[in-house]
């Protein structure tokens, strides 16, 4: 049942991304629509706005959570596509382990940044 469990995690990660990334997109990109609903804010990509968000724990938590689920979902999906092209089980194992290592490394570095900005 191992493969099924990883696949179910992939689906759960997808649903979580839909929620978290939705929040992220609305905050970052859709300020015209937010203004329509009465939330008024300056350009969310400016330095001051970004530093303001970086010092709030809730945004750091959101970014790290989004990073974890998005990395898992994306790497599992890409691994599936590559496995459909690899001819043997042995090559498949090499692919899987490389993805695991890449995922851990990228998560480690990318989670460090919001934590560093939070504390500074």
């Amino acid at each position, binding site marked *: *049942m191992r*493969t*099924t469990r990883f696949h179910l995690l992939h689906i759960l990660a997808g649903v979580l991304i839909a929620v978290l990334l939705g929040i992220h997109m609305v905050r970052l990109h859709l300020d015209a629509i937010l203004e329509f609903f009465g939330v008024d804010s300056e350009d969310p990509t400016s330095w001051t706005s970004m530093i303001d968000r970086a010092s709030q724990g809730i945004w750091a938590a959101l970014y790290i959570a989004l990073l974890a689920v998005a990395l898992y979902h994306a790497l599992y999906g890409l691994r599936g596509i590559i496995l459909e092209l690899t001819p*043997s089980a042995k090559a498949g194992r090499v692919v899987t382990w490389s993805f695991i290592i890449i995922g851990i490394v990228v998560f480690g570095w990318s989670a460090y940044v919001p934590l560093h900005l939070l504390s500074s």
Partner: protein
Amino acid sequence: MTESSTKQIAFKVQRYDPEQGGAPHWQQFTVPSSRGTTVLDGLIYIKENLDSTLAFRTSCRMGICGSCGMLINSYPHLACHTQIEEFHSNTLTVRPLPNLSIIKDLVVDLTPMFHNHKSIKPYILRQDAQEMRTPTSEFAQIPQELNDFLQFAYCIKCGICVSACPTSASDRLFLGPQALAQCYRYCADNRDEGQQERLRVADTNHGAWHCHLAGACSEACPKGVDPALAIQLLKRRLASQALGLRGKRQASSVVSPPTQTKPKIPFPEFTVKGSA
């Protein structure tokens, strides 16, 4: 009764002879066709009158044996089941089924598909091995239980779904829609107790989870078996098992043949008396 007109249809057939080597190439034939002429009739006409080296599989000519699957005008059909008239065109392109190796001309190698089919154990498995070897009774099954899997039992193993599947196009190790649909057909059969073993085969890296619901298999299936539905229901079983949700289902009980039978009707007198 009006005379149906006979048209001359151009058949572009892909030829490939392994003994002569080289790449597959096209050969054009002109075949007379009228209302009711199937593509298979056209191919038989070619073989009998124009080029007897053309190789293709055929048997029942009525859409039940699954031999004559081929790609006709870029879509997989059973050649015996396909009228030339339905294409409304004077040219027909006939190619062997993709995603299966070509043996010669329009004959493809179905062995990988049968191998995958065998690997999911397409037979009833029960705990009582003695009963399986020397059956003494029947398995009880009501019509509603039969309807849960009957649609998927109509598979004629023609290989058209495997040709349509985009995953089968690149993934050699994929079980394929035919094997996965049959895996569900046996798991859903209430007479069967082998679900654990079969789900282990479908749960692998190239098993049920490489199906991405393109739906081409069900669309192309010539018998309406709907393998896509079977595979999604199989995924539901896999997920229930992984999450520990599925309760143990009682396999069908064993029913002894009836001891009380109706009184035998006497055999009637022959109406034609035999010659002495």
